[in-house]
């Protein structure tokens, strides 16, 4: 087992499957005192309520205590303290650090300046490996397998780190992809080349309707305003896709809709009550996967 969880690329197929199987145990037994007496630091140098609550709940459910901050406004960082000093100081207090930071590579750097495990809970537009693992867990849970799954990714495929990491992690499992996006937000060339070198098939379309009926997973994403430099560009594409209940006629019975949340307008509320909606359960799964991550890095199994 690795000491840290920084990038999904650091993990082999076997290590990924191990975490997913521990997460399965956590779901079956949601409160365990495995980490009684341990202290987990949740350092959020950039706000993210969803991810922070998920990690903090995960730590609490394992019996650990949690310290940390949810933004830097009232900390020494606003006085100009370096990342290295903050990490060194906190690492002497706690057993593991979970951190989110706006700078890319910040978690890797933090893991190099301290001796305790570091979990990357998002470093700018780079990596968010616990999201990738919970996506894999949810695909496995809904399809009963990870192999030979057909995934339709929809929305911002250009800037969306979630879809990029998922694509790379799924490459272990012989998937096929459809990329549904407006021309401005197409999957970047480097990821298509990555698939080409591994012989993984994909198609591209701008039409949401076109491949709804031949996928197992419909992975919806939000067009993130913060990734755009030009507000006009954002206005052009922000409402490009909206999935509604009426569009789901004739989809595969096993098809599930995933979304990393929060959603804005891309999935209509009337989809929530269909048997295909799975995004709330997906978010719940995040907690089990994060329990597994913290437990595994602290030496459980």
């Amino acid at each position: 087992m690795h000491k840290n969880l920084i990038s999904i690329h650091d993990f082999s197929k076997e290590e990924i499957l191990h975490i997913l199987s521990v997460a399965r145990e956590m779901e079956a037994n949601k409160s365990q005192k495995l980490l009684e007496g341990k202290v987990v630091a949740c350092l959020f140098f950039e706000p993210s309520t969803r991810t922070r609550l998920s990690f903090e709940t995960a730590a609490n459910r394992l019996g650990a205590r949690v310290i940390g901050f949810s933004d830097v406004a009232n900390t020494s960082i606003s006085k100009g303290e370096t990342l290295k000093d903050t990490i060194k100081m906190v690492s002497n207090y706690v057993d593991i650090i979970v951190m989110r930071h706006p700078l890319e590579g910040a978690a890797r750097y933090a893991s190099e300046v301290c001796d305790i495990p570091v979990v990357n809970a998002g470093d700018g537009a780079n990596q968010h490996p616990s999201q990738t693992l919970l996506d894999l867990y949810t695909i496995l849970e809904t399809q009963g397998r990870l192999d030979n799954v057909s995934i339709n990714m929809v929305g911002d495929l250009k800037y969306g780190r979630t879809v990029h990491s998922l694509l790379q992690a799924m490459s272990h499992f012989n998937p096929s992809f459809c990329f549904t996006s407006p021309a401005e937000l197409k999957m970047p060339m480097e990821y298509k080349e990555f698939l080409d070198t591994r012989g993984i098939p994909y198609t591209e379309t701008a039409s949401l309707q076109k491949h709804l009926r031949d996928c197992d997973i419909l992975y919806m994403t939000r067009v993130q305003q913060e990734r755009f430099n030009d507000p006009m560009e954002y206005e052009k594409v922000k409402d490009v896709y909206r999935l509604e209940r009426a569009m789901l006629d004739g989809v595969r019975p096993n098809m599930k809709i995933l979304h990393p949340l929060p959603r804005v307008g891309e999935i209509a509320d009337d989809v929530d009550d269909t048997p295909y909606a799975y995004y709330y359960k997906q978010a719940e799964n995040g907690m089990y996967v994060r329990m597994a991550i913290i437990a595994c890095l602290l030496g459980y199994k």
Partner: protein
Amino acid sequence: MSEKNTQLKVSAIKDGTVLDHIPAQNIFQVIDILDLSQALNPVTIGVNLESKSLGRKGIIKIADRFFADEELSRISLAAPDATVNIIRNYEVVSKKKIDLPAEVVGIAKCSNPMCVTNRQAVTTRFKTVKEGEKVKLLCHYCEKTTEEFIPLRH
């Protein structure tokens, strides 16, 4: 009347290292990377000399100094086609090209403005990826690819 001697005369060295075929615009980076501004041995630097292959090249002659291969590999990004001549008793006893190292540490700058190495005091680290003639740098921290070599300012 004899013709004017138009050949630039650069004094020969008895023992030492001659780095030839350095792109003229990168010569000061090479000096920087090898820390030659601190050298106490005689160093002769030629810039904007004519070269058939490079157009304008730079050359550095360092008397009484021999470099380890790792040391020289540090200049491979700034001078990928450089030739290293080892001089002993005015004779070229060895002539070789520079190897590209698998990893470069503390030499190049990451092109990603949001990379932690550009905002905190972090030593940069890249894997080198050779694509045909081009060398790309894969950042150890932000995982982005830098296409062009940008030297760190010391």
